[in-house]
């Protein structure tokens, strides 16, 4: 404590101003997080209070109760959406990590024809938002006849140019000599990849895992466009139906608030867990 006081005392006026403005900015950026946590625990009268309040006065779990128990009386229970989301997210995550790290390693450390063309394709595909390719994606998925399957959710995510790009930038930093030394030592390609390159690329892997998790976990596109069967849809889709659409929008507000928190929590936890590694990757790859 004493050390902290000493540190504060030594700050210049400019540093104080800088610190204060950064704290203000951080507090402002934290507002939605504070709001979403408080909102989920508000009873009905507080949810619709005007002017709206940030902090909850009489916290209650009734929203969660509604979400889990009441909705199970409907055709598709909440737990089904949650299950779908978990399955889709975990398989996508695994598939993206495997495919992108292998692609990045080859693009970074091997010499082969068409390498430039492949890289150019990846850079090009970085420029498209998912919405712009929704129609071609729909055509491909229906041509493959994988609507209403988990694979229909997963396939669009496996081709992740951002992940390949980030990973390649990171693997580029690993000296070629390391790979060559392992070759001379007698390591096979698989072993070099798994035992030498991957442990060093852990920060990038963590970043990819988070980026992928966030995009898959919060994606409603596949459910909206490719899934006609209600039992194959995921959590984000369910939440949008709570606040708009067929359900009573007033009655759904409490459940929507609770579901919103449930959607947000995994993101928060993963970020807190892997924050340091993400920063490392961003610095290395020059992406901000």
């Amino acid at each position: 404590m004493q050390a902290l006081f000493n540190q504060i005392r030594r700050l210049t006026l400019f540093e104080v101003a800088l610190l204060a403005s950064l704290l203000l900015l951080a507090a402002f950026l934290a507002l939605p997080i504070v709001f979403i946590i408080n909102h989920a625990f508000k009873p009905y009268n507080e949810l619709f209070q005007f002017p709206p309040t940030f902090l909850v006065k009489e916290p209650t779990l009734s929203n969660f109760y509604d979400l889990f128990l009441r909705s199970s009386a409907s055709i598709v229970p909440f737990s089904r959406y949650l299950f779908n989301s978990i399955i889709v997210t975990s398989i996508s995550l695994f598939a993206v990590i495997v495919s992108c790290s292998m692609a990045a390693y080859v693009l970074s450390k091997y010499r082969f024809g068409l390498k430039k063309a492949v890289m150019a394709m990846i850079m090009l595909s970085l420029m498209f938002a998912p919405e712009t390719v929704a129609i071609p994606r729909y055509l491909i998925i229906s041509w493959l006849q994988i609507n209403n399957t988990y694979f229909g959710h997963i396939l669009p995510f496996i081709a992740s140019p951002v992940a390949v790009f980030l990973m390649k930038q990171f693997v580029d930093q690993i000296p070629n000599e390391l790979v060559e030394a392992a070759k001379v030592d007698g390591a096979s390609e698989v072993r070099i990849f798994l035992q030498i390159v991957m442990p060093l690329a852990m920060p990038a892997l963590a970043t990819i895992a988070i980026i992928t998790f966030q995009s898959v976990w919060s994606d409603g596109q596949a459910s909206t466009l490719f899934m006609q069967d209600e039992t194959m849809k995921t959590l984000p889709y369910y939440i949008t139906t709570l606040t708009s659409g067929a359900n009573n929008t007033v009655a759904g507000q409490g459940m929507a608030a609770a579901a919103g928190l449930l959607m947000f929590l995994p993101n928060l936890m993963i970020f807190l867990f892997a924050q340091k590694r993400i920063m490392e990757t961003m610095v290395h790859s020059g992406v901000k």
Partner: protein
Amino acid sequence: MASVSFRHVFKTYRSEKKPSVNDFNLDIEDGEFLVLVGPSGCGKTTTLRMLSGLEDISDGEIYIGDRFINYVSPKDRDIAMVFQNYALYPNLTIYENMALGLKLRKTAKHEIDMRVKKAARILEITNYLDKKPNQLSGGQKQRVALGRAIVREPKVFLMDEPLSNLDAKLRAQTRAELIRLHQELGTTTVYVTHDQTEAMTMGTRIVVMKDGVIQQADTPQRIYQHPANQFVAGFIGSPAMNFMAGSIKESEGRLYFDNRRVRLRIPESFYAELREAPSMRNVILGIRPEHLVSDSAWLQANDNKVSALIDIKEHMGADTYLYLNFGETSVVARIDNSEDNFQLKSNVEIGFQMEKAHFFDAETGANLRTDSRRGQL
């Protein structure tokens, strides 16, 4: 242990027209410490990488012992390589770093342990075996990299500028250790460097390369005393050999080196070969800084001297380097400190020990003495 043979080896990269390694033809004997030296981009590292198998061979054949290895993968060539940046696996401990090569070859555990510990003892790194590479200093990392090569007990050691990331003092120390290690193990070693001091001190034989072509392959002494061409003469030696352009003139049966500034009498031992030279008009005189003398007794007894202006003086401890100008020519003289009573920007008499001089063809750069061209391939 084994010999190594290169038979007319070429390396041409697809994007380049000129070969990076051009007709490399060399036999390395068993137990030899061969140093490949040359300026950057001369193909020395490419040659080493072709021997290691990390680079394809465009044309020609390479043998380790009697075995033709062009298409053998690096791990099956029975070689060990030491890299400039050490290339230690950062996620493994020092012990695991050294043991990995043996483990992958399915060596018995107790034997791995024995060999790693023995190598660690030789290199005095026993205390670091449990540490990770990033906990070690540059010099220690270099020893671990050497250790990783030693434990494998390969037929050939390949070293790619292993000392260039170390500071000057550590480099000198490690250099001595490498020499000792080679004497102890006697393993055939191919060592790449751009540093001529390393080449001169470590090599049992030196190969000087330029633009992918071997300029001369010979012992350090012969390379120094009998450089095959002007490039080798200028590359090996510090400070570099002095060069002067001029021609050889004959008068009254005597040969003189002559340009507008100096006229130096050539000793008779050179006559026979200089007279056979393709052109006596255009020659380059080369003389090492230590063969320029300022000793007054010598100067009185000899005619081969000029008056020059002292431009810069460098004290090197035992010696002093004098940078001298006469006319448009500048030369460096290396003189004993005891003789140093020279004033900067003053004129001084400087003598040429012509019996130690070299004459090169101005066009081809070849040494005009056939004896010196012997080492050239």
